[in-house]
């Protein structure tokens, strides 16, 4: 066993079990354990552990606390809508369910500390208690006194208690204006590629050799490692795609040793998975179904690829007009839409002066008049400005394809912005056979 965790305060056997449960995290676990000390020794009042998602922050801590049988309360701040819930959970796990009724309804921090002190006096246990607050970044959104108070809880309740905060966000973003008790910072570094491989190989499939699984993981990491280092996500992807990987083996087309052919088989699938499952555009179940059905259906596409909205004919043109009005400067309207624009020379007409592109800066707001003017020039038939046209504008706003700026009470000159992407508008204009790129100033 490499890098065995050692500590005189605990039984060898337990520590051995702990280090088996924590692959590639023995340095961190060892340091944490050293900080915690023997069960009855004081530990630092507050410890702040930060690191990327799925680097084993909660896992290491829970394994340590659980296996070494220390008294602890663990609360995920996502679950705690109200402070009351947070306090209840802590009291419940530290002192048992009989003590929860001692807290009044909607308790304040003062009540919590009072009840805690009262319970401490009654109990005789001297072991360090641990309060683990997962996703601690959410504490910042609670009342302003919560975070500083938890950081110095040991002082406030006068008990042997250590608060451990876990977060993905660095401590600098937590510090309140007037400062507070500084916690001890510990960093959990990300797993290296080899470590990821080692951990992921542990869930190899029982009916296949571990070498094959390891080869699969290697291929998977080759595709995804440059985008995603989240162990949890990678494991999910591995579980989803393994059966596709071994499909040729099942059919006896390829031998197990022929990794290269297996790789050629699986790589396009993994790339597709990056465009779909990884982006959560299809659910895992859908992905599996699609993979099964794929033999007939042909190419597999993500949600965004076939995202199109059915709109009425005029609405499409209104949206196109809105897009043009948003991304073209107003003074260029003359160039694009006036049929007889006097004696401007042709090359002058097409020349562009600015370098900045509106497609980088985003859509500009435009008034209703301009929208309608552009609309009349792009739509091929004559349209009367009836209520139906105006109601289509407001339904585009409701669909969030347009966004209205300012307040609703501006009745005479409302301003809008177009809120769709270039891909989307190109798809729309294709359906009405309108070449939008020709009318965009940025693409002249």
């Amino acid at each position, binding site marked *: 066993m490499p890098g065995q965790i050692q500590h*005189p305060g605990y039984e060898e056997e337990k520590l051995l079990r702990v280090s088996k449960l924590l692959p590639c995290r023995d340095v961190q676990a060892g340091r944490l354990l*050293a900080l915690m000390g023997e069960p009855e020794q004081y530990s630092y009042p507050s410890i702040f552990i930060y690191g990327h998602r799925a680097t084993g922050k909660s896992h290491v801590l829970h394994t340590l606390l659980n296996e070494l049988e220390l008294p602890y309360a663990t609360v995920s701040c996502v679950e705690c809508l109200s402070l009351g819930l947070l306090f209840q959970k802590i009291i419940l796990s530290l002192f048992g369910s009989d003590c929860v009724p001692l807290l009044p309804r909607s308790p304040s*921090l*003062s009540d919590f500390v009072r009840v805690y002190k009262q319970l401490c006096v009654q109990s005789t246990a001297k072991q360090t208690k641990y309060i683990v607050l997962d996703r601690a970044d959410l504490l910042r959104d609670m009342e302003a006194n919560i975070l500083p108070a938890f950081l110095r809880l040991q002082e406030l309740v006068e008990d042997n208690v250590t608060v451990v905060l876990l977060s993905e966000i*660095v401590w*600098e*973003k937590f510090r309140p204006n007037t400062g507070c008790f*500084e916690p001890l910072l510990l960093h959990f570094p990300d797993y290296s590629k080899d470590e990821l491989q080692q951990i992921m190989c542990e869930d190899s499939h029982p009916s296949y050799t571990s070498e094959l699984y390891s080869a699969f993981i290697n291929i998977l990491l080759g595709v995804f490692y440059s985008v995603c280092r989240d162990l949890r996500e990678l494991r999910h992807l591995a579980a989803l795609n393994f059966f596709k990987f071994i499909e040729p083996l099942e059919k006896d087309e390829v031998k197990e040793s022929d990794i290269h052919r297996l790789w050629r088989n699986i790589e396009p699938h993994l790339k597709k998975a990056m465009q779909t499952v990884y982006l959560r555009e299809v659910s895992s179940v859908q992905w599996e179904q699609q993979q099964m059905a794929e033999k007939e259906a042909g190419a597999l596409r993500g949600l965004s690829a076939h995202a199109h909205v059915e709109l009425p004919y005029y609405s499409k043109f209104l949206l196109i007009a809105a897009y043009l009005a948003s991304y073209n400067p107003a003074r260029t309207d003359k160039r694009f839409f006036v049929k007889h624009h006097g004696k401007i020379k042709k090359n002058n007409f097409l020349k562009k002066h600015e370098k900045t592109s509106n497609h980088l800066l985003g859509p500009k707001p435009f008034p209703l008049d301009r929208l309608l003017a552009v609309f009349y020039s792009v739509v091929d038939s004559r349209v009367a400005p009836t209520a139906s046209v105006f109601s289509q504008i407001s339904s585009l706003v409701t669909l969030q394809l347009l966004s209205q700026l300012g307040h609703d009470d501006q009745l005479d000159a409302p301003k809008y912005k177009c809120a769709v992407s270039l891909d989307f508008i190109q798809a729309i204009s294709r359906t009405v056979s309108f070449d939008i790129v020709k009318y965009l100033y940025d693409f002249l």
Partner: protein
Amino acid sequence: MSKRKAKKTHMTVGACISQVQTILRERFCHQMLPEKPVGMESQYKHLLELLKRTAVHGESNSVLIVGPRGSGKTMLLKCVLRELLEVTEVKKNVLQVHLHGLLQTDDRIALKEITRQLNLENVVGDKVFGSFAENLAFLLEALKKGDRSNSRPVFFILDEFDLFAHHKNQTLLYNLLDVSQSAQAPIAVIGLTCRLDVLELLEKRVKSRFSHRQIQLLSSLSFGKYLDNVISQLGLPQDFPDTKFSEEWNDSIKRLCEDKAVMAVLQKQYNSSKDFRSLHMLLILTLSQVSVSNPSIKPADLLEASRVCGADSKANMLHGLSILELCLIIAMKHLNDIYDGEPFNFQMVYNEFKKFLQRKSHSIYNFDKPVIMKAFEHLQQLELIRSMEGSTANIQKDYQLMKLMLDHNQVMECLQKYPQCPTDVKQWAMSAFG
């Protein structure tokens, strides 16, 4: 006889280490009170005199203890109270009310807490009071002894005093200070705060009732004294069971503090902050490395602890980013350089990244825009970039203006340490123009 004594004083190394850990941890982690506060003798005397007058002669008083965080405000007060309470007469007589700005967030809660701490819950019972002042007056009235002329002195200790100034109308402060001004029950109001401008926060009527007595705790410790303090903090007390071990330990600490590298670390620590709390953090990390196999503090332990303490957390986080996310950060860095720190949006970053891919990249695969968007959002989640606009409802995700929360050097330093960073990415980051 002598044999027995020898037996008693000899313990195994394991037991000794465990004992050392217990003693020192109590010092570093539990803020155990020292024998005498270091470097604040005059303030100590001043405060002691003041409280004595309230406790013994029944004079009312108010005082503020002002000092930066970790400078020992609470420690000073506790030491003074400890000495004061050694006098039996005082101990019998004085009542203490501890309020904390973080806990008692409004005056109603504070009043309840005062009632509780004065053990007057049954006296108050179900009485309904018209005003806050009436309630407080009642409480103080209740403290008067049988012989009426004389009531027991009360210390009101308000930790995080500045937070009490944010309560509505500052009712609690007004009333407490009012009582301390007028010849009612003898009370001493002691406020502890880290804000130097705390008086500016008080309303005029509250300010005028305050005695304007301030005790400033601005540490003027010299480095020599600081070093002595480190030695005494790490040293073992006289009554340590195993005298031989404790002598060896104390000697090793002295030797440790003479080491060049250790001196440098402590000097750095001293220069950045003189307070003992940050020192404690360093020392607990050092202490945690002491075990049976490593039974004394080595210079390397302290260096390691200082490395852990001083690590740049943002650089640590950058280390764990995927290569795509790192590329986006570099693109943002270039945008920052070009546009002089103006905010940018996703579209610009994407464009910059695309330009890089077209021109010189061989090692990086061309990702889809949504994949890049996901990486961008992850950076936002990590708060490495921050949205400039307050409300994000009206704006497309691509065009939200963002700001990079890292500076040039952090990005460059991270690139040096990044594992297996492709050379072309490195070169791209170094080049002046995107």
